[in-house]
């Protein structure tokens, strides 16, 4: 079999407006088969709008979309057979058990191996016999994940997949995503937090105000990852000793507490700190906005204009 030269998802010049409000103003994307692709952006940047166009829930104004070799508008039904989708919000108001909802959705797909449903439910510790209406947010999310993965689709489109999952289940989810990738299948997942995708994604695009502002190889991004580090020492320290270190930026000291930003490996900082007595250490990941401003405002010419960051859902 020859390698498929067509990307699994390809969008060019995608635009969408709701009345006077512009949700997407020219989105270009290409996702290769077998990749895990992170689709990052603050809330309201246009992530969900893009995903809904891929699934043919909403119709683009202009631009081209190719999905698994077809057009979602023309070949929607056929394409959706090969797609598993997790919506950003799962409304579940039925009094019937989760198992019944899942078998209904499975029948819409023309049947799904029951064992696959059972094994996914077991992995996520989901009780299929409880009515979906009473489930917690996390448990509803699990039902959503089971229905997205159960038919082993070629392409998974996941809108904020880890929201509501506790850290243990997030790990289980990431393991599942890795297995899907090992099968050569493709995962397209959105998030407003870099941390959710950085461990597993191969590529990431950052969308902001309806436009893709960066396309990154995750290995590069990880190398340049910023962290905000706060350390408290037993004795007062000199800011200068840390500020001169290569990966350290914006070092400031207040009494015995050092606050700074570290780009890439924190090795040098740790070694310098280790010569003193460290009482506490916290390391925080910057949010996407901060990352965006640091990387793309300073580094690469002008940022896109502000078009209101709470644009369309």
């Amino acid at each position, binding site marked *: 079999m020859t390698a498929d030269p067509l990307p699994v998802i390809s969008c060019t010049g995608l635009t969408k407006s709701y009345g006077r409000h512009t949700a997407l103003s020219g989105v270009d994307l290409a996702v290769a088969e077998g990749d895990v692709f992170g689709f990052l952006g603050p809330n309201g940047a246009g992530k969900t709008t893009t995903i809904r166009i891929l*699934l043919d829930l909403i*119709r683009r104004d202009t631009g081209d979309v190719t999905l698994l070799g077809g057009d979602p508008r023309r070949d929607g039904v056929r394409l*959706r057979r090969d797609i598993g989708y997790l*919506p950003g919000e*799962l409304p579940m*108001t039925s009094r019937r058990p989760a198992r019944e909802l899942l078998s209904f959705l499975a029948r819409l797909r023309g049947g799904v191996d029951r064992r696959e449903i059972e094994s996914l439910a077991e992995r996520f510790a989901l009780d299929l016999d409880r009515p979906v209406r009473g489930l917690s947010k996390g448990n509803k999310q699990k039902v959503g994940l089971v229905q997205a993965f159960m038919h082993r689709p070629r392409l998974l489109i996941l809108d904020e997949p880890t929201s509501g999952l506790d850290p243990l289940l997030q790990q289980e989810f990431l393991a599942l995503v890795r297995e899907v990738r090992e099968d050569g299948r493709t995962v397209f997942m959105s998030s407003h937090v870099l941390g959710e995708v950085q461990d597993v994604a191969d590529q990431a695009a950052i969308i902001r105000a309806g436009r893709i502002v960066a396309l990154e190889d995750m290995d590069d991004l990880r190398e340049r990852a910023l962290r905000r580090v706060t350390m408290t020492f037993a004795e007062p320290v000199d800011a200068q000793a840390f500020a001169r270190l290569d990966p350290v930026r914006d070092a400031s000291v207040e009494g015995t507490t050092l606050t700074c930003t570290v780009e890439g490996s924190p090795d040098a900082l740790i070694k310098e700190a280790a010569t003193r007595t460290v009482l506490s250490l916290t390391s925080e990941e910057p949010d996407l906005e901060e990352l965006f401003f640091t990387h793309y405002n300073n580094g690469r010419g002008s940022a896109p204009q502000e078009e209101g960051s709470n644009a369309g859902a």
Partner: protein
Amino acid sequence: MPVRDIFGKFLMDSRRGIIGWMIGVAAVTALYSSFWPSMENTSEAMGAFVEQMPQLAQAMGWGDLSTAEGYLGATVFGLLTPILISIAAIAFGTRAVAGEEEEGALELILTHPVSRYRVVVQRFAALAVFTALLGATIWVVLAALGPALDLGIPLAKLAAAALATALIGFCYGTLALAVGAVTGRRTHAIAGAAVLAVVGYLGNTFALQQEQLEWMRFLSPFYYALDPEPLVNGGDPGYTAVLVAVPLVLAAAATARFARRDVLV
């Protein structure tokens, strides 16, 4: 067969409501028809009452309260069950598209390999079954009580009247479904269908007293259902065809629009 799943699932999910409405329709039908024997005994007094207000009587369809056909036609079939079934059908038709769309439940179905046509057509079919069940309820109750109440109306004519009543509800339920499918808004679906139901009812009752307003009755499903007096004459094929054609046209137009628009924005 996966083909009927959306239809079957929607009916199953609605079964509490369906059973509730059937009980309500059965109760109203039984209650009012069981007044008939005592009405029959006071028919002279009723006749005098009607004579004093001929216009109101004509508007309300109280043509002849001294016969079982006249009494049932004025009460059960003229007012109570058509309105009850219309309310039920409007609620059902609203939920069929707009309600589930606003809830977000439609999104999950539409992201499966299912066409939009299939969703609307199967929910329209579910609405047809729902209104048919309500119409059948009227018929079953009257058929069962008929001998005891000495109604003396043939079962076929009761069936024709029940069918006509169910079709009134079917028209307004489809209207709610169609407005919901076009706009995606629950409130528009309910309000649009409810306003037209009121206009339709008035159009076939009070508007008849004003010559200038008489045209309104042609917009009213109540007119096509009640004017042929199915309890007396049996079903009228032409008028019944109108009551079937209207929902079919509405559903077709709604489906065409729903297939093209954005869902839930």
